C-alpha cells in the first residue's frame, strides 16, 4: 500500500473516477495544463484529454453554473474552486441551482456533482485564502458537505462524493495537503456520507473536530491522557451535512462532557449546531456546558498572527479542563 499525502490521494481518487466512469469530468481554473495550483489534478489532462479535464475562464459563478448544466445533461462534473474564499462568487449558483434543481425539476434532474475547494488556515496565505465557511453550506438545504482529515479519508470521501446522486461540497483542509502521509489502499473503502468516525475511544470527555482540526484534537487527547490521565473520546465528523447526530449523542451521553473544535467563525457555526443537537438529544447526560474552541467572529488575521488565532492543542486542553472541572 503506497504512502500518500492528501494531494496524491485526491489525485488518485479523481484519476480512478475518470477512468471508471466517462461521465466524470473535472473543470476549474488552472486544473488542466497547470494541474491545479495545489497540483491535485496533475497529470489528468494528459490521461483524459481536454474534453474531460477542462481549464475554465476566471469566473467561479460560471464554473458552478456550467457544472450544474453538465449534471443536468447527465455528466458528473467535479468542479474545483481555487480557494474556498471564492466560492462566494458562486453563491447564487450554488444555492439557486446546484442545491435546488433536483427539487425544482421535481426529481427529473438530480445534480450529481462535486464542488471541491481548499479551505482553512495555516499556510501563511494572503487575505481571503484562509477562511472556513462550511457553515454557509450546512445552512443551505439541498447540499451535502464533507471534509476529510487525512489522505485516506480524502480519497474515500471523494469517491463517495462523486458517487453520490446529490450535490456535494467537498472542502479540503489545505494545511493538510502535504502535512503527512498515510497508507492509501489501491481500492477505495466504501464509506457513507453522513457518518462520523470515532478516531480515539474515551470515557471522560468527547472532543469533536474535523478537517485540519483533527490533529490538534488528537494531540490534545494524547496530552490529556499523558498529563492528566483523562480519557478523551475524539470524533472526526467527516460529514458536516448531513451530520451523524447519533454518534455524537452516543458519545456525549457516555462522557457527559464535550468540546467542539473548528476553525470557522463561532457565531452560527458548526459547533453551535452540534451543541443544539446534543442539547436536544442528550440533555440529561450533560454534566457541564459544552465548550466551543473555534475561530473568532473576526476576519481571519494576516498570516503573521494566524498561529495564534487558530485553535491548537493547548486551547483544546484548556477548554477540556474547564469542562472537566465544571461542577
Amino acid at each position, binding site marked *: 500500500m503506497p504512502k500518500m499525502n492528501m494531494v496524491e490521494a485526491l489525485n488518485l481518487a479523481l484519476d480512478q473516477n475518470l477512468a471508471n*466512469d*466517462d*461521465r466524470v*469530468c473535472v473543470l476549474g481554473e488552472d486544473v488542466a495544463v497547470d494541474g491545479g495550483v495545489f497540483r491535485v489534478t496533475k497529470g489528468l489532462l494528459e490521461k483524459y*484529454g*481536454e*474534453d*474531460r479535464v*477542462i481549464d*475554465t*475562464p476566471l*469566473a467561479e*459563478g*460560471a464554473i*458552478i*453554473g*456550467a*457544472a*450544474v*448544466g*453538465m*449534471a*443536468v*445533461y*447527465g*455528466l458528473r462534473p467535479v468542479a474545483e474552486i481555487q480557494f474556498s474564499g471564492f466560492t462566494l462568487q458562486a453563491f*447564487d*449558483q450554488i444555492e*439557486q*441551482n446546484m442545491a435546488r*434543481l*433536483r*427539487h*425544482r*425539476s*421535481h*426529481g*427529473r*434532474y*438530480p445534480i450529481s456533482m462535486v464542488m471541491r475547494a481548499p479551505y482553512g488556515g495555516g499556510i501563511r496565505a494572503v487575505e481571503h485564502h484562509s477562511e472556513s465557511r462550511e457553515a454557509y453550506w450546512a445552512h443551505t*438545504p*439541498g447540499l*451535502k458537505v464533507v471534509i476529510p482529515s487525512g489522505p485516506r479519508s480524502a480519497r474515500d470521501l471523494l469517491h463517495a462524493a462523486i458517487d*453520490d*446522486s*446529490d450535490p456535494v461540497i467537498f472542502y479540503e483542509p489545505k494545511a493538510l495537503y502535504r502535512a503527512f502521509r498515510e497508507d492509501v489502499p489501491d481500492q477505495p473503502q466504501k464509506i457513507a456520507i*453522513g457518518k462520523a468516525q470515532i478516531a480515539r475511544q474515551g470515557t471522560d470527555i468527547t472532543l469533536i473536530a474535523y478537517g485540519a482540526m483533527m490533529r490538534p484534537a488528537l494531540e490534545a487527547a494524547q496530552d490529556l491522557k499523558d498529563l492528566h490521565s483523562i480519557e478523551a473520546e475524539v470524533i472526526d465528523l467527516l460529514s458536516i451535512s*448531513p*451530520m451523524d*447526530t*447519533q454518534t455524537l449523542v452516543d458519545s456525549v451521553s457516555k462522557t457527559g462532557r464535550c468540546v467542539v473544535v473548528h476553525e470557522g467563525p463561532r457565531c452560527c457555526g458548526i459547533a453551535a449546531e452540534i451543541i443544539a443537537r446534543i442539547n436536544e438529544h442528550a440533555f440529561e447526560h450533560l454534566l457541564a456546558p459544552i465548550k466551543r474552541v473555534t475561530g473568532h467572529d473576526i476576519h481571519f488575521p494576516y498570516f503573521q498572527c494566524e498561529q495564534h488565532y487558530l485553535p491548537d492543542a493547548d486551547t483544546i486542553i484548556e477548554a477540556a479542563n474547564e469542562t472537566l472541572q465544571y461542577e
Partner: protein
Amino acid sequence: MTPSAPELAVKSSHIPRRPKITPPKPRKDISTPTIALGEIPNLQILNEKGEISDPSHEPKLEAAELLRIYRAMVLTRKLDTRMLTMQRQGEMGTFAPGMGQEATQIGQIYPLTKKDWFAPSYRSFGAQLWRGWTIEGLMLLWAGFFEGFEVPEGVNDLPFSIVVGSHVPLAGGIAIGIKQRRDDAVVVTNFGDGAISQGAVNEAFNFAAVYKAPVVFVCENNGYAISMPTDKQVATPDLARRGPGFGVPAIRVDGNDVLAMIVATTEAVQMARAGDGPSLIEAVTYRMSLHTTADDPKVYRRDEEVEQWQAKCPIARFEKYLMNKGLLDPQAIGRLGDECEQEVLEARTRFRERAKAKPREVFDMMYEELPPELEQQKREYLAKLDRKGVQ
C-alpha cells in the same frame, strides 16, 4: 455514440477527441441572414402592416405550418388572458404575463427538435407550451402547487427560472456537455433586457464563446425590467452588441415579427449544430401587460407608449399576412380563437381537479434519500399536520 440525457446510458471507455457532428441539414425553406460579429444586422421580414418588407428572407413554410404557428401564438395569448382573470379572482398566484411577446416566444424555439434543450426564464408561456409543457402544469405552478414544475415526459427542458439570469450559465453548461459528447443537440435560452445586466449572463456569454458551445442566447428586449426602461438599463442603443464584445455573433430582430424570429433562430441553431458556437439574438418586443400581477405600470410608463405598440401587435400582424395569403378569414380566426379558448378552459378544469395542496410532500425531492436529521424533522412536521388535522 450519442448519450441519452439526463442519464447517460452507456459509459464509453474512449471518447474521441475530434468532433463527430451531424452535418446540419440546411433548410431549403428558410433563407438566413448573417448573424455577425461586426456591425449588428437588423432583421424584419413582416412589417407592422403585415406586408413582407424583406422578401429575400421570407421563409417558404407550408400553409399548415404557418397556421400551426399562428395558432400557437393565439393559444399563448388566450392562456395569458385567462390566467389574469384567474389571478384577479384569487385562483392564481402572482405571475408574469407575456402579452405582446408571442412572436418572440414561438419564433425562438420553432427550429428546435425534441432532443434539443430549452432553458427559459419565467415569462415563457408560449415557448413552453410549444415545447410540450401542459397548460394545467403551468397553471399549477403559478398557483403555488409544486407539481406544476414536473418536467413532462419527453421534454428536454429546464423548469423556468425565477431568479433573473441565473439559468443562463446552466444553458451554457448543457451545451458544453453536448459538445463533449459529440451530441448534435443545441440549447436555446431566453432572458430579458434586465437580465443582460447580471454578471452571470455575461459570464455565460464568455464561457459559451470560449468553448464554442452550441447555445443560442435569446434576449427578449421587451422595453422594461419592471419599471426600468431598457435605455436606462444599458448605455448602448441596442443589446445585441453585447455579444460581439464577447466574441458571440449577434443579430437584432423585430421580435414582433414571428417570421423574422424563426429565420434568425434557424440560422443560430444551424450555426450551433454545425459546431460554429453560440450566438445572441436580441428580440425587440414590448411587454403589453403588467410586469407581474403585483405591478402597476401606470407609475412608470405612459399609455400612449402602450398604444403605439398595440399597433405592432405580433398576432394581428401575422394574421394580416395569413389573410393576404388566403390562409385565414375572419370566420376562421374566430373559430380558431374559440378553439384555443376552449383548450385553455379544458385545461383549467384539469387544473382545478389537481389543485390540491399536498403539504405532506414538502420533504420530497430534496435528496435521493432523506438523511436522518431530515427524517426527524419530517416526523415533527407530519405530527404537526396530524395535530391540525391536515391531510
